């Protein structure tokens, strides 16, 4: 009997394990990544991305509550909270309370923690960045140079062999200055490019915003630096808006149409009103 009950117990235990394992296997793993953005050496922000491998394909996960931390995952180091959107992204601008942690060292780390949900357990992600900046400059003949400097202890030192992009800022995206996709920095940390986009429309004075950026760098995150250059064509644009056309708004129809329509209407209704006057006249004649 003893032996049988042992086997019986083991069988039940195994069943229970299988059940718990099965229910745990229902939960997919949420993988979090966090990227650091330095916008023109001024504004900095973090973008977290939540995705999960479901049915062999990576899917972006919305509606995850995410907490951003600087340094370590302490309540004191909480930067803020955000919810991932339809694309699985959550954005947080770095708030003032990060000041002390930020100023501590040249290397800073950020941690992202997701809240446990029905479908996903708590997940974490982190990124370590070294503070860096781009100094952009222009030379004659529409030449552009940019120096990438990283902070070593308290000294800004040039960085070599990092890919940089040079582009002109436009509405939704940046147009690269020439067909070459990237430019690597040399031993002095300098990358240079030629501006090849002739007659690109700028603002009314022909100004363009030049941007040098480092994208998705493992050490430095995303950096950018901007400069206004007068290399564009002064913009001229033409619009029919506000003119008198057949497709303009009410009150802005072509003059010939208004003249034609109003004169016809006045003529015919003038006759009708005259005739109604005639009826009144007949009334007067009849009732006398």
């Amino acid at each position, binding site marked *: 009997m003893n032996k049988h009950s042992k086997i019986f117990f083991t069988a039940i235990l195994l069943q229970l394990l299988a059940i718990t394992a099965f229910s745990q296997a229902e939960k997919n793993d949420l993988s979090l990544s966090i990227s650091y953005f*330095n*916008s*023109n*050496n*001024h*504004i*900095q922000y973090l973008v977290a991305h939540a995705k999960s491998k479901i049915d062999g394909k990576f899917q972006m996960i919305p509606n995850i509550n995410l907490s951003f931390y600087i340094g370590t995952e302490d309540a004191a180091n909480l930067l803020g909270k955000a919810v991932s959107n339809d*694309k699985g992204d959550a*954005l947080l*601008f*770095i*708030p*003032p*309370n*990060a*000041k002390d942690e*930020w*100023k501590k060292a040249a290397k800073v780390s950020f941690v992202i923690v997701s809240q446990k949900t029905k479908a996903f357990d708590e997940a974490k992600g982190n990124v370590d960045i070294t*503070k860096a*900046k781009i100094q952009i400059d222009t030379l004659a003949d529409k030449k552009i140079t940019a120096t990438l400097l990283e902070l070593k202890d308290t000294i800004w030192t040039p960085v070599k062999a990092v890919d940089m992009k040079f*582009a*002109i800022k*436009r*509405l*939704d*995206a*940046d*147009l*690269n200055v020439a067909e070459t996709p990237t430019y690597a920095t040399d031993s002095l940390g300098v990358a240079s490019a030629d501006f090849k*986009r002739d007659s*690109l*429309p*700028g*603002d*009314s*004075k022909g*100004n363009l*915003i030049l941007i040098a950026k480092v994208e998705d760098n493992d050490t430095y995150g995303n950096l950018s630096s*901007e*400069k*206004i250059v007068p290399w564009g064509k*002064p*913009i001229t*644009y033409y*619009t*029919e*808006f*506000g003119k008198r056309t*057949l*497709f*303009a*708004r*009410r009150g802005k129809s072509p003059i010939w149409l208004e003249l034609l329509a109003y004169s016809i209407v006045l003529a015919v209704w003038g006759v009708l009103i005259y005739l109604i006057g005639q009826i009144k006249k007949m009334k007067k004649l009849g009732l006398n």
Partner: protein
Amino acid sequence: MKTNDTSRREFISATLLAGLAVTGCSSGKNPFEPDAATIETVKPSGEMIKLLSVDGEVIEVDKAFLKPVPSLPQVSNELARQGIPGKKFVMVIDLSRCKSLKKCQSACNHMHSIHPGQNWIKVYPQHEAEHTAPYWQPTTCMHCDEPPCVKVCPVDATFKRQDGIVLIDSDRCIGCRFCMAACPYSTRVFNWEDLDLPKEIADKPYSCETSVPQKKGTVGKCDFCPDMARKGELPHCVSACPNGVFMFGDMNEDVVTNGSETFRFSDLVRDKAGYRLMEDLGTKPSVYYLPPVNRNFPFENKEEKEENKKS
């Protein structure tokens, strides 16, 4: 619109040139866009937010100027009718890349809560003549520069803005459907019945720019997502396409992008022999097509095969 005075403009430009070492970007002007020609797309909201700058200093910035834009208040009906000044939105569709995945369609339908069965983007299997190439043609509203739909609307419910976008005001539309008869591209749909939307969508305040929620008895169509354009983001179809078929941009900036690739618009259309649909009708559409040369994918019409199987 041109009430910005020059001196202030130059001051801001100078500040930017100095490298933004100063704090205090709390002026009423957007420091991230140079002067008036590309006139502010975003007006200062007045709501200031404190952030930590890269230098470790505490700065105050107007919430509306942050890029990426967190959120924008809705524009008034009058501003929605005028549009974003200085811009002329244009779309380039690369037919050689389209595989009829219809991600554009599902993204657009989802984001605008369109009635199931209807589509603002239609992906046509085109094969004009026996010996010409078969290809997939995604068709949005053309936002024509001489829009036949706008010409015939009796109540100014559909209108053309100065940024080239043709919108529909569902609060004004009387449902006469003359615009649907006039459009040669068959791009307009009609809300024949109540849409039965979930509460959070049905309760959203309506704006011509978001076109949400759609209303019974009115007309709807692709709107080039002007609410996204105001934020400097791309329309939903453009971001949703995995093959980069759609490219969107401002003709006055001469640039179009599909999110990952950016091109100079005039060069792209000229070099790849872009064309517009039904050019001979004189509607002057704002959507350019790049011919299906060097197709990325062979043309397979699964729908036709299914239909043939059925019959």
